[in-house]
């Protein structure tokens, strides 16, 4: 039976991908940023997940203004990197798990959680940078092929309104129920990406709220129910216009269904325009039935 054993949160800052591609990860500015993933790389390599359900936002790459799905799931066999203006990143294509993805889509829809099915798309830094920081070699080189299959879950956090934090949490619960009913024995990780505090636009650009971010990180483990009720306006005021990406961490947290142990934390300011946040959570109820 498939089970979600871990939840991982990480920022997906595009400059991280650029530094990997340019071989500049050893520069003094970047070294502490990458060092914060060393523990996770080793742990995940031992843990050997079969599939990662990767929650991220498309940054106007696969979706333009023609179609704006609030929640979408990739059901393809493979996803190629998008050209975000600098040419496509030189990373391998991302292998999908079409069977599991279709199962999750069907289960969520029958569970009254409508989700858009995607059969062809390219993926941008929102999806590839998290794969890099966790699956690259110790010296931050991208592997020739990614060691897991990926089920992309794309969330609209660009055009307002994005989904509420509570709705994201509920989608996480629906995904967990779907996984629970998938017959194959799979070790599955769910990753929530994006965040933490950052503002990429306007005269207020560069806003960083360390205190708010740290409190959010604490609550992910100690009292996550409190995070469900944070309003969009609070994310905007307190964490900058792009801090809203943190709602995607709540899909991951909602899928973990209860007690978790924080195994690792990495928080660093600055990374380009942002605060970088990263958590590794062990799901302590992975082997018990989901309500």
């Amino acid at each position: 039976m498939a089970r979600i054993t871990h939840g991982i949160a990480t920022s997906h800052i595009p400059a991280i991908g650029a530094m990997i591609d340019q071989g500049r990860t050893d520069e003094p500015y970047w070294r502490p940023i990458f060092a914060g993933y060393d523990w996770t790389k080793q742990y995940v390599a031992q843990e050997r997940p079969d599939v990662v359900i990767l929650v991220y936002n498309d940054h106007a790459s696969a979706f333009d203004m023609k179609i704006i799905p609030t929640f979408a799931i990739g059901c393809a066999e493979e996803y190629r990197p998008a050209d975000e203006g600098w040419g496509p990143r030189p990373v391998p294509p991302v292998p999908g798990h079409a069977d599991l993805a279709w199962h999750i889509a069907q289960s969520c829809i029958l569970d009254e959680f409508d989700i858009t099915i995607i059969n062809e798309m390219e993926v941008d830094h929102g999806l590839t940078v998290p794969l890099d920081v966790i699956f690259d070699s110790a010296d931050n080189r991208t592997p020739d092929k990614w060691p897991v299959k990926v089920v992309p879950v794309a969330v609209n956090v660009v055009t307002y309104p994005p989904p509420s934090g509570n709705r994201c949490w509920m989608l996480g619960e629906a995904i967990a129920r779907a996984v629970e009913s998938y017959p194959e024995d799979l070790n599955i990780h769910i990753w929530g990406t994006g965040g933490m505090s950052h503002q990429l636009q306007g005269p207020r650009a560069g806003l960083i709220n360390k205190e708010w971010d740290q409190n959010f990180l604490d609550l992910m483990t100690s009292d996550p129910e409190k995070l469900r009720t944070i309003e969009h306006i609070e994310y905007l005021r307190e964490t900058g216009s792009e801090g809203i990406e943190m709602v995607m961490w709540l899909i991951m947290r909602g899928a973990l269904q209860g007690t978790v142990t924080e195994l690792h934390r990495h928080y660093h300011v600055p990374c380009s325009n942002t605060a970088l946040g990263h958590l590794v959570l062990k799901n302590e109820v992975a082997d018990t039935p989901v309500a």
Partner: protein
Amino acid sequence: MPRDVAAYLAEFDDIPGTRVYTARRARQGYHLNQFAMSLMKEDNRTRFLADQRAYLDEWQLSDEIKQAVIDRDYNRLLDLGGNIYFLAKLFSTDRLSFQDAVSTMTGMTKEEYFQMMVGGGRSPHGQRSIKGQY
């Protein structure tokens, strides 16, 4: 429970130095953002850089928007319905990093902005609410 859309939107105008990408802006900037998306293709980037005005003339854009694109006036483009995730294709076409492009909207030099970020970023203190001044 249904939410009051007007009340939801009203609060967004109270954040200093911030344009939230609401439906109003999304409609206003539709063609601007789709133009930016077109720069995801190398051929289009080459054509655009070779003759910006001619390339912009292929799109349903006001002269004001075309001029703001040519001026790379990102604050103006945000006011005219641009969205930063889309406009990123424009500054990537110019081979600018996110940080260098974003700094142009703040009234700081690139170096001043970089130093502010290294120093921990812009404090939220006094930057949360225009009306409340907190």
